[in-house]
């Protein structure tokens, strides 16, 4: 299965520098937010810096690490928000 990854803020910068934080990720089913995140950290070691302090959203809604992922899902990964 393939999911779409979106990285934002300091997570995007750590993995992609000044580039866009969008990429495809191939996963074997069954997949969860946690398994995708683990794979992504292996591909982009600087992301390990955020291991304990990161938020997830699946298809534009906040998600937990145990939530399942389906083919075609969009998983967004980002640090605590700091807008306003």
């Amino acid at each position, binding site marked *: 299965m393939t999911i779409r990854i*979106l990285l*934002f*803020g*300091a997570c*995007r*910068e750590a993995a992609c520098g000044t580039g866009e934080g969008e990429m495809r990720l191939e996963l074997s089913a069954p997949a969860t937010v946690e398994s995708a995140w683990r794979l992504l950290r292996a591909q982009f070691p600087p992301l390990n810096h955020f291991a304990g302090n990161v*938020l997830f*959203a699946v298809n*534009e*809604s*906040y998600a*937990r690490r145990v939530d399942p992922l389906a083919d075609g899902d969009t998983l*967004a990964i*980002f*640090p*605590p*928000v*700091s*807008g*306003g």
Partner: protein
Amino acid sequence: MEAVEQKNGDVFEVTRQPIDKLALETRVIRGAAGAVVTFDGIVRNQTHGRPVLSLQYEAYPPMAVKEMQRIGDEIREQWPQIDGIGMVHRFGPLAISESSIVIVITSPHRKAAFEACRYAIDRLKQTVPIWKKEIFADGEVWVVGEPPPAS
């Protein structure tokens, strides 16, 4: 600009353009409104005494708009008397003294308008996926966000 058409005339938007505060107020004020409370967040020229040159905001626009709508729903549940809600967040590069966020709440009476406006900005800073980086003369620093909301 990312926005979703609201049936009740409420406004939830993220945009790269400067925020037109007066236009937002005009869109949100209804005939019955007696109290309009507006929060305007402005880029400060310093943080903890260190001069800031500018700010860079990054957003996840479609989710940001959804989370704003959710805050709007929470407001209408807690303060059913509220007339109108407008929230516009800007992203991209912002100069000192530009507005990053404007929130407008209109209500027949002032108490609910003040409370809901305060609630809206407090919640926005917890849940709406937007991040800011402060640009200094000698470097850049991502602002550390508030702890994740309890889920």
